[in-house]
């Protein structure tokens, strides 16, 4: 009988978690993004949004392509992260899958950190796939900042999503709500010197995301380090808070 201390083989299990993401969440993300791209580009190409002026892919102005790239990247990262972290903890609790996982020699924080990283790797793979599709059909844009920005945005949105998933089961709904409230809050009270301005600083800095996307798209100069660091730090803090909740809260609800 083996009574020596041992650990779950999380390095190997990582590939199962990535497999789950690529099999279930990735196809939905890709399909929705392709549909979204078609619905955005079609009115420009057929002239219904450009006062009757028609374009082909080849004749699309550079500024339109770059603006489309930045918008696509923003939508992709919000959607992909939403899918990747939706129910990451809450689903196992609700369904009872946690029982067999956590009778094994593994802690919930380690297990879900593994899942968070595996899903993040999946989001990066999907983003790179869509980047290749973009290059094949529109223009070849391969910015060096692409990977760090995808990672930062996954951490920013995903950290909040992860935290919400440790708290309750309606995490996707609450993540969208938080994103909307943050966007509105920062636009209305971001520069307010009063209490509203202080409180809004507790919300995710969603107003900074567009500066990252436009830089990646090549529409602006000078990497927005402040935005990158603030978003990453905010997401990391939420993620760590989620791990602390996992460590201190009972795994079973009853």
């Amino acid at each position, binding site marked *: 009988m083996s009574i020596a*201390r*041992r650990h779950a083989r999380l390095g190997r299990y990582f590939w199962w978690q990535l497999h789950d993401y690529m099999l279930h969440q990735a196809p939905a993300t890709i399909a929705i993004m392709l549909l979204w791209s078609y619905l955005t580009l079609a009115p420009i190409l057929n002239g219904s949004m450009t006062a009757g002026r028609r374009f082909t892919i080849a004749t699309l102005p550079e500024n339109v392509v770059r603006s489309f790239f930045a918008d696509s990247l923003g939508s992709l990262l919000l959607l992909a992260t939403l899918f990747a972290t939706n129910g990451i903890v809450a689903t196992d609790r609700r369904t009872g899958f946690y029982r*067999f996982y956590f009778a*094994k*020699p593994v802690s919930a924080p380690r297990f879900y950190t593994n899942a968070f990283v595996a899903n993040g790797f999946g989001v990066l793979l999907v983003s790179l796939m869509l980047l290749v599709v973009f290059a094949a059909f529109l223009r070849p844009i391969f910015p060096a900042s692409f990977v760090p920005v995808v990672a930062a945005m996954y951490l920013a949105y995903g950290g909040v999503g992860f935290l919400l998933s440790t708290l309750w089961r309606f995490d996707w709904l609450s993540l969208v709500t938080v994103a909307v409230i943050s966007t509105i809050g920062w636009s209305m009270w971001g520069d307010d010197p009063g209490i509203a301005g202080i409180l809004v600083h507790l919300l995710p800095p969603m107003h900074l995301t567009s500066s990252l996307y436009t830089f990646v798209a090549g529409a602006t100069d000078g990497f927005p380090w402040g935005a990158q660091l603030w978003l990453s730090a905010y997401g990391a803090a939420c993620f760590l808070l989620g791990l602390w909740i996992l460590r201190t809260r009972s795994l079973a609800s009853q």
Partner: protein
Amino acid sequence: MAQPLTGGAFVQLEGVGKTYRGLRRSVSAVVDVTLDIGLGEVFGLAGPNGAGKSTLIALVLGFLKPTSGTLRVGGYAPRTFVERYGVGYLSELVTIPPRWRLEEALSRYALLAGVEPDRVQSRVLALVDQLGLAEHWGKQIRQLSKGNLQRVGLAQALLHDEQLLILDEPTHGLDPVWTQRFREIVGELRSPERAIFIASHNLDELQRIADRVAIIDHGRVQRVVQTRGAGNASVSTPYRLVLAGESDKVRDLLSRATQSSPNEFELSSLSVEELNVLLRALLDRGVQIAAVSPVYSSLEQQFREAVDEAGNRERAH
């Protein structure tokens, strides 16, 4: 390896309580439970629905935190023990992601159980063979019947050679052949270095495989029954006695028995010793005994008494 893992009580509960606090009311699921489970022991837990069995198991696994008392497993807090050594656990509801295939599920759980990656396949194959699951290889979990799913649940609990096995309603949904096989497996798993904790509604099963059985009701351990060894002989049980032929000449010996037909009697609770004294006296009078059997098992008798007493106490409160 840490010293507390061997010797003495392996699972220790002292005054353990668990109360669920809601906005309007609180529910005490487990109240002041004190138990010791030793290595080498098969310990049973019996109780009616809602008695607190699953909550007690969740506490031992560290899935829940007690609101009072202390709980140690192998000398550690439950979660610490589980995260360091793992536990072979079969839950009452076998919940495995339904899209996983049988071999995929077991391979995944094997990695989580700490089985070396190059041994995962052979371990999975061995358990699939041991539990008769080979014909279901390649099937998704959702395609399995209740009994087969139960066997998959048991297989994942046995992936690693665990020192502590916790089986919650292990024969639920199993047919008689696999129920029997399960008993054999528990027999094979018995070891001086392992503690086996089984919760079940099936008292006959617990009587057969457990060394001791705790009867729990209303969240409290009402009594602990010794089901194996010398203690068993002292347990009083009612018996059904069937005589072959004339019973009138032993009427005096059976004065306290209830006669249900000319040659059939129900004897009020007797210990094994008392039963044998009576049977010897009957044989000495030249009466032939056609059959003698317990009306219900000693554990069942104890269970009825414990649950009735607990119910009366609750009503009195």
